[in-house]
């Protein structure tokens, strides 16, 4: 036979949603499949296409990776703890 071998490598990321985002999405967790080299920017794109009403296009989605704020270029790895952080209003 000897044809070319084709591998589809993907990465599954479990994403937790809180407060406003949880209500808008209607779930508190979503499994997003991304390419293995994906970063936070790719994740927010995927999440926006899954849930177009999550945030208006001109409002940024903040992402926390392993309990710290992450910037758009932060690379993601399987097993990372990933959460979407709606605007914060703790306190009073």
């Amino acid at each position, binding site marked *: 036979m000897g044809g070319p071998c084709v591998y589809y490598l993907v990465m599954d990321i479990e994403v*937790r949603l*809180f*407060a*406003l985002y949880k*209500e808008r999405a209607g779930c508190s967790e979503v499994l997003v499949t991304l390419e293995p080299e994906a970063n*936070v*920017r790719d994740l*927010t*794109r995927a999440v926006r296409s899954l849930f177009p009403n999550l945030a208006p*296009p*001109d*409002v*940024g*989605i*903040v*992402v*926390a990776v392993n*309990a*710290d*704020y*992450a*910037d*758009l270029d932060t690379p993601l790895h399987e097993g990372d703890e990933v*959460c979407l*952080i*709606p*605007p*914060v*209003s*703790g*306190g*009073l």
Partner: protein
Amino acid sequence: MIQITEEQLDSEKITNLVRRDSNGAVVTFLGNTRDNFEGKSVIRLEYEAYVKMAVKKLEEIRQEMMQQFGIKDIAIAHRIGVVDIGETSLVVAVASPHRTEAFQACHKVVDRVKEIVPIWKKEVYADGSRWVACEDHEFVSDQPQLA
């Protein structure tokens, strides 16, 4: 001391944690739930937290203030879950040898809590509810041109 709890906050107990004989000033801030928003009557508030990260960020704020103001005694407690009107959702207690540092650090802690700690507040009205968004957060978002 850092605490996130569904229990009522005991401000006196939290304040006592920062008292010591070398501190001449003790400042305690209480954040209480208001019964109105822009003319609408608020029935109760519901707080939700990403607890693991909230604890981490509160501890970061505490360390930041200890360094910035050279003080040792800071306690921060945030209540989550349902909080009735007039009850306390946030207690910040700061003690220092002199008053200036205690006042400044306490004020700064409250501002920072609102900026970076992932705790959300939902106002419940007779005819609906609303997640309250704070305008002055300083996050890196996926829309940098608007950040």
